[in-house]
């Protein structure tokens, strides 16, 4: 059966696959950077002494984390045109949804990172006259991010894999590109196998990087 596979169509399909891969990577990078920034703000709100801010952040994070990502992708894609009157396109819709969704997950990681910095470090910063914001920027966050770097990267690997879900709303990501090329050449199995290899290679490289980082951080400590 395997003998019937014909990978010669991969070559001509490459330009289209490349466009799909670029979108998948763009989606990952945007959702990662946006998610980490928003997630940090959410984590700060959640750990703050202001009850309203803390509750609002907790409500957001807990709600998002209780809903399947695929559902959020679909809702957002179909609901937004109802409010704005115009469709915003699958790609833009995916970028916004992923950023907002991942922010909830990143915020839990950042919260753990913030808690990993011992209270006396904040005391020491305060005793030197640093304001709360200065202490966060120069003392707490740098240590927190150092501690959580491996976990943040692991979450990003999961995020990269999850980007394939945008296939459901027709955004042209790596998976969608494989589907289209597969159909064009009537060789879907080969194309799916080929992109599986791409997903695997990228994720494997990233998780190797995580392992190296963990070792380096262990030495710094």
């Amino acid at each position: 059966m395997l003998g019937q596979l014909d990978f010669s169509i991969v070559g001509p399909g490459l330009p289209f696959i490349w466009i799909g891969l670029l979108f998948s990577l763009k989606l990952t990078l945007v959702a990662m950077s946006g998610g980490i920034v928003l997630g940090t703000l959410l984590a700060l709100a959640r750990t703050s002494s202001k009850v309203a801010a803390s509750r609002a952040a907790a409500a957001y994070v807990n709600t998002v984390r209780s809903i399947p990502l695929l559902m959020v992708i679909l809702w957002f894609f179909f609901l937004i045109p109802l409010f704005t009157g115009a469709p915003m396109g699958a790609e833009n819709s995916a970028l916004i949804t992923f950023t907002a969704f991942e922010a909830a997950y990143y915020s839990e990681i950042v919260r753990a990172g913030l808690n990993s910095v011992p209270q006396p470090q904040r005391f020491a910063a305060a005793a030197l006259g640093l304001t709360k914001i200065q202490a966060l920027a120069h003392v707490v966050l740098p240590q927190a991010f150092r501690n959580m770097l491996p976990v943040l990267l692991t979450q990003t690997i999961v995020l990269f894999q999850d980007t394939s879900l945008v296939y459901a709303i027709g955004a042209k990501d790596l998976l969608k590109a494989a589907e289209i090329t597969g159909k064009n050449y009537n060789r879907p199995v080969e194309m799916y196998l080929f992109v599986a290899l791409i997903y695997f290679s990228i994720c494997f490289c990233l998780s190797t990087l995580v392992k190296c980082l963990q070792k380096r951080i262990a030495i710094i400590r």
Partner: protein
Amino acid sequence: MSMIEIRNVSKWYGQFQVLADCSTQVSKGEVVVVCGPSGSGKSTLIKCVNGLEPFQKGDVVVDEISVGAAKTDLPKLRARVGMVFQHFELFPHMSVIENLTIAQTKVLGRARDEARERGIKLLDRVGLKAHAAKFPGELSGGQQQRVAIARALAMDPICMLFDEPTSALDPEMVNEVLDVMVELAREGMTMMVVTHEMGFARKVAHRVIFMDTGRVVEEAGADTFFGAPTSRRAQQFLASLKH
């Protein structure tokens, strides 16, 4: 003139009272040692002086500025009060010299070069100039605590607070830290020191405050306190230290 004045300070953690009506003062140039059994509230009291620990009653006045008043700019006040912690609390992600310059540049607004120069000078003073580029994790406990003292001094403080500065050290490292503190005391620095090092207290303390169960039980000149303590708890405490 009183540099630090603690007026009837009381503090509760929920129902539990940790400080009960504590009063004392430290004059300019004076060295005051606070001692007492563990859990007596001495560390909490010294953290009230720069407002790291909030208190519910009474007030602390440092250089005529009220720590308890809502309108007081605490970061500004803290920048003028040096503090040294039991576990050093150097910033582990910064080199030794960065530890010494960060607050100088961010809080006092000194230029980088000026802050660096001041930092190196102080490192030299505590005998650690050669370690400026190292990270705290590469230094021994005694060295880290000397860096912490230098870090506090870099801010040109009007007084220094020491919260059990030698309790976390191996015995052979205690003296290198105490030597720096003795020198500081002899130069006329105003100091409030929570410590169990009675040798240090005898040598440089002008006054000793003895605390137990959140109260200031006894307050006397160092000679009087060690020679003839009046309270029974202080007598027991001193006797327990001798063994």
